């Protein structure tokens, strides 16, 4: 197979041609600044509003509560830092989980240096947050609970409706990093009691560099970027009109196709998971078996290291990712895999494959066949496997 097989859709996705098509006129033709007052700019302004409506629809939110940002990381930073600033009189305690994306975890670490207190609630072996621990962590000075809707590495979907209920019962704001979940699984800011939600365009076949922070009316957080009256004076900077239009179109497509796409992805995902677990020994699936993103498969192969696996997969034309230390630039493997209780040496051998609706059964089967050869080859040169086999033979 000479064609590339792209199985890293949690990293980013292809911009759908129909998304690009809707964006293009806003570069060359309707380039007006939506903040201007002449008629020419009305087209841009209308396009931004339409996109806002599409995102609001997907979240069951009020249109006015959707704020466009430069991406998911900015949204997370804004939600956390601005909440701390705005609610300082109530307290400085934040609750989050041990498996958040670094956009939340590193922001929390930064806030701790500024004098905030952060409780990191543990997850179980499937990556589900421990709700009893979460509730017990709430204090009179707790201002925010921030828990991701679905994990970017192992795909586990969190019980965010439950978390929202608990947060509101205790009068605490609830933010969710929904970058991986947005457009992939149903989200409803009303029924789930979500006060703030981060989302990104490029995870749903929209463009990069555009994101959203949903802020429920009444949540008092202020601007994170200063210098303009855009986004109801809450996010300065000239609107990225083509990006916004692209994200809006992608959101609309995601809403229309969610059921069919999920079904297709789940069937491919389950086929992949079943074959890998059955045909490759000493392998485990990470994350919840059922409450997981439709397109996510995450494995650990014992006795081998992730980066070597990725290089060989790449040479076979398959794009995947790993939580090994070598791929993260640090000495520690993924904090998510450690948080679900995996020992370091097993966490180093992780592989994340995230599918799209465009993948085929043939591609999945080819990937499994290549993977079998790669694992065998790497185990053949692994001193850990050598020791293991010798131990078995004693």
């Amino acid at each position, binding site marked *: 197979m000479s064609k590339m097989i792209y199985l890293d859709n949690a990293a980013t996705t292809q911009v759908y041609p129909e998304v690009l098509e809707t964006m293009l006129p806003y570069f060359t033709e309707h380039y007006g600044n939506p903040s201007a007052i002449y008629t020419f700019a009305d087209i841009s302004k209308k396009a931004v509003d339409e996109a806002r409506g599409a995102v609001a629809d997907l979240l069951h939110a009020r249109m006015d509560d959707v704020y466009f940002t430069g991406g998911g990381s900015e949204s997370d930073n804004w939600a956390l830092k601005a909440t701390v600033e705005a609610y300082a009189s109530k307290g400085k305690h934040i609750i989050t989980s041990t498996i958040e994306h670094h956009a939340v975890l*590193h922001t929390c*670490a930064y806030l701790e240096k500024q004098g905030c207190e952060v409780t990191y609630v543990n997850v179980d072996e499937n990556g589900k947050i421990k709700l009893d621990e979460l509730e017990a962590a709430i204090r009179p000075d707790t201002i925010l609970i921030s828990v991701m809707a679905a994990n970017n590495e192992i795909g586990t979907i969190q019980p965010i409706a439950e978390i929202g209920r608990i947060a509101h019962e205790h009068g605490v704001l609830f933010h969710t990093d929904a970058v991986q979940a947005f457009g992939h699984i149903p989200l409803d800011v009303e029924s789930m009691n979500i006060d703030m939600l981060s989302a990104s365009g490029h995870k749903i076949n929209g463009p990069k560099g555009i994101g959203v922070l949903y802020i429920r009316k009444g949540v008092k957080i202020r601007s994170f970027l200063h210098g303009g009256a855009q986004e109801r004076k809450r996010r300065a900077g000239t609107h990225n009109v083509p990006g916004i239009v692209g994200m809006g179109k992608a959101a609309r497509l995601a809403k229309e196709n969610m059921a069919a796409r999920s079904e297709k992805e789940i069937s491919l995902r389950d086929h992949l998971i079943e074959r890998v677990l059955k045909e490759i020994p000493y392998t485990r699936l990470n994350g919840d078996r059922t409450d997981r993103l439709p397109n996510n498969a995450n494995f650990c192969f014992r*006795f*081998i*290291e*992730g*980066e*070597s696996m990725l*290089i060989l997969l790449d*040479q076979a034309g398959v794009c995947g990712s790993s939580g*090994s*230390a*070598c791929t993260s*630039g*640090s*000495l*520690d*493997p993924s904090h998510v895999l450690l948080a679900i209780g995996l*020992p*370091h*040496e097993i966490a*180093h051998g992780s592989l994340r494959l995230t599918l799209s609706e465009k993948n085929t059964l043939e591609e999945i089967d080819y990937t499994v066949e290549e993977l079998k050869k790669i694992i065998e080859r790497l185990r*053949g*040169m*692994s*001193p*850990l*496997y*050598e020791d293991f086999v010798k131990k078995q033979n004693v």
Partner: protein
Amino acid sequence: MYSEKVMDHFNHPRNVGEIENASGVGTVGNAKCGDIMRMYLDIDDDGIIRDVKFKTFGCGAAVATSSMATELVKGKTVQQALEVTNKAVMEALDGLPPVKVHCSLLAEEAIHAALWDYAEKNNITIEGLEKPVSDISEKEEEEEY
């Protein structure tokens, strides 16, 4: 991110395997930080390294540095092998990305550990050889974000 030489040694590692009843075996690194190298040396009575094999658990750079290290010591005397530094391994591979320099240190340590084992087995002292650190991760500090 890797040089052609690194990719060549990763794709076609030289001297992978084990040596039964080796003159010296050294294992360094730890699974915690994701690299383990094991080096087997077959040394004759004249102190010449006749054969060398390795097994490595680790990233592309770890495999490539192990492979290159075996090439650099094969056919050499014990004393010459001792002079194969991590720098020499890196240079022979046309360099490594900065985050992978520790892999070349591991390769140097693996040679030293195997030589140390050889010296102990034969009750000899190899001049200039210090007892190798089995866990090099202890020497490294983690970067702070």
